[in-house]
């Protein structure tokens, strides 16, 4: 696939052109680009995955396309999906079922359901029952972070996944295949981190809705193509000279699974909050350091997961002294002035975690607000008012 460069004189697309393409990918609930990728070669396979993290390197090493499935958003009417869930279950599983039963995922050969919560866990079993022709795996990860205990367990799980995906793809996945894929994903993660640094430095040039769309494109594009997009966007955004608004700077947290509507992210900025860090689509930067490319690749992926990975509600924190400190660090690192807890309704991980994180922020003297949303929330006025008041209070009353 080409990036369709027809932009500025230097041959690179403009930020607006990149964002336009990313938005088209975001809105395409038929996953045309992934279908096109698959149809180019009949041996190609597509493996879907849900939040929060799967080792996409192994899917890539099998020659398959990892495809992030994040529900149906606010543009898809859920008709069948609601018949599978009670009113008190969050929305992402019902719209994901809708994607499945309406045939939008009929080209997907495998689905990975990571260990994030009981709803996604149970969805793995539902998928087995509803789509028996699809390879389905509940992707469990250790909650024990000792190399000899959780590390060994996880490396063995990765080994099983490697064998399964090798069978699905009809080829053996060699260590060298894995090392090549790790190298490619290391580069992708470096670019994502660079994008996040850029936004923290000058959020007016890399607005949150744009960063969101560019990041989200990485869930449907081949990684090599996404890295090219990231490079282009970072270069284009750096070259922009957009007006600086009198906004406060915030970290948004709780948005790691069911996606907030794009309008919600836009509303935060319109209300006076520059988003300078978030926990959206953590799979794109879950591993916080490069994974070594020498030695045993599965052991390297396991060690990276145990010792160099993001923190979030789905992970157990063994040390009470460190509980929630990652959020304080995110605030300090990004120069944020406050935190917005945006949690999907009925999201156990985000909502159970929230009081503990709020206590940590309170102790650190960091202001915060909280609200809930659903992926199809339409009314943004209350959120805009709440975020606007928060922004004003920070600007007027903050000790900084």
């Amino acid at each position, binding site marked *: 696939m080409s990036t369709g460069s027809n932009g500025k004189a230097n041959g690179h697309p403009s930020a607006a052109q990149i964002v336009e393409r990313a938005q088209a990918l975001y809105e395409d609930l038929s996953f045309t680009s992934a279908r096109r990728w698959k149809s180019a070669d009949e041996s190609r396979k597509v493996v879907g995955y849900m939040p929060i993290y799967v080792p996409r390197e192994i899917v890539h090493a099998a020659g398959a396309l990892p495809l992030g499935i994040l529900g149906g958003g606010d543009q898809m009417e859920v008709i069948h999906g609601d018949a*599978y869930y*009670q009113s008190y279950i969050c929305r992402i599983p019902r719209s994901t079922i809708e994607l499945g039963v309406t045939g939008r995922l009929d080209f997907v050969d495998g689905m990975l359901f990571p260990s994030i919560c009981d709803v996604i866990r149970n969805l793995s079993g539902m998928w087995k029952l509803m789509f028996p022709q699809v390879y389905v795996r509940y992707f469990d990860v250790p909650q024990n972070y000792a190399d000899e205990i959780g590390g060994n367990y996880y490396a063995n799980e990765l080994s099983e996944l490697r064998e399964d995906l090798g069978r699905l793809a009809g080829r053996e996945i060699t260590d060298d295949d894995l090392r090549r894929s790790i190298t490619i994903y290391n580069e992708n993660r470096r670019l994502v981190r660079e994008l996040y640094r850029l936004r923290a430095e000058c959020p007016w040039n890399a607005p949150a809705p744009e960063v969101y769309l560019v990041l989200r494109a990485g869930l449907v594009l081949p990684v090599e193509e996404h890295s090219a997009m990231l490079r282009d966007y970072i270069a284009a955004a750096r070259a922009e000279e957009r007006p600086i608004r009198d906004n406060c700077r915030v970290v948004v947290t709780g948005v790691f699974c069911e996606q907030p509507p794009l309008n919600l992210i836009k509303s935060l900025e319109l209300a006076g909050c520059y988003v300078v860090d978030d926990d959206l689509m953590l799979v794109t930067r879950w591993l916080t350091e490069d994974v070594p490319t020498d030695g045993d690749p599965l052991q390297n992926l396991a060690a990276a997961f145990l010792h160099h990975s993001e923190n979030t509600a789905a992970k157990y924190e063994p040390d*009470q002294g460190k509980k929630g400190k990652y959020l304080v660090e995110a605030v300090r690192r990004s120069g944020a002035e406050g935190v917005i807890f945006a949690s999907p309704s009925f999201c156990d991980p985000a909502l159970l975690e929230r009081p503990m994180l709020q206590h940590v922020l309170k102790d650190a003297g960091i202001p915060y607000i909280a609200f809930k949303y659903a992926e199809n929330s339409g009314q943004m006025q209350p959120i805009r008012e709440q975020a606007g008041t928060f922004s004003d209070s920070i600007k007027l009353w903050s000790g900084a």
Partner: protein
Amino acid sequence: MTTKPARPVATARPAPAPKVVEKDASMLKQKAMMAAHYDRLSDAPETGAKVCSTFVPGNLNELVMCFDLLNNLPEVNAIQSGLRRQSGSYVLEAEKIGHSEDVCTYVKSDLGMMAKGNIGPNGRRLPDPDVLLLSYTGCFTFMKWFELLREQYKCPTIMLHTPYMGDGKITPNMIQYMVKQLKEEVIPALERVSGVKFDIDRLREYLKKSAEAEDDLVWVLQSARKRPSPIDAYFGGIYYIGPIFGAFRGTDDAIDYYRFLREEIADRLAKGEGPVTPDGDMGSERYRLVVEGPPNYTNFRQFWKMFYDEGAVVVASSYTKVGGTYDLGFRHDPAKPLETLAEYCLGVYTNRSLPMRVEMLSKYVEEYEADGLLINSIKSCNSFSAGQLLIMREVERRTGKPAAFIETDLVDPRYFSAANVKNRLDSYFQMIEQKRGGARPVKEAAA
């Protein structure tokens, strides 16, 4: 000086005599055991006993006892608060201090109870735990629950992670992972907290006792295959599982209780009697149901009455398997003490994949000759509830028996609507009658 006229006597109606709730001897024995345990907990500050809080699924009572620790189960405390109509105020208290209205009410009942002085069902203060054994089995909420408790109690917290049976099987990798956690982290940490050295032979002895009681429990649960069923395997079953799911598994008390219970049920069976309900013998058995999901505790008797008034008996339930799937053949095995604890945790009902649950419930409908499956969907419990509508359809498709769906909550009284539940149950019983090929008798339908 004028005297105030006395209130007319005629308006004061005599208070009705308190209704005597009937309990069979095993229920009274169970109640006494539970009360004694709560007293042991309340006495802990005086006796010096150390307390370990943990969970029912993945409850490692035999191991806990090896360190002379008292087992305290916050879920059971929440249930007790629900039965005593106290959980509603506890839930509100927790919401007042910042916990979302969307999350598990067991957690909120526990946190609210703590905020209000941690008074247990015996009316006495429950002690702070010395250690939290986070046996993370089959429920995501457990992990956050104990992180929340750790924040309050600031005591050592030990994680034992049980992998989920997503592919419907226990793999050697899962067992090795769990045994390593037990050997290298859980046991050393319990030794540190308790000051007691681990003795594997002591563990073996407890495990042997567990298996003995488990045999009798299974016999009792499977007695419901007979017609009429001598037990109610859901409402009555909750009493039966109390000791073995809690602090008694591995003890002589549990062996005695389950032997006593078995004899009592054998006697009912011999006499052709049905279950004992709070209003006495149930009377004729008209509907045999399999129930999926936990019960509502805030209106427990009212809920049960809706069944026994109609002659509906629950012959098998999934809830009575959350603390172990003994009826599927599992027994604690003293020959492989740590592996058996791992297998136990892995096999509990909520750690089983959805296809496994469908298989199990379908088998229950057939083996217990049930009229169908009833799902009580719990607002609080995603581990149980997410996917239940598909379970319902699948079991219906596989067995050809009608299924129905009601919604309540564990311990939040705001989510128990008696009229709604009753309406749905009535419709369900009519559906069963129609499926049997005959309309419901007029007299019954009008009742």
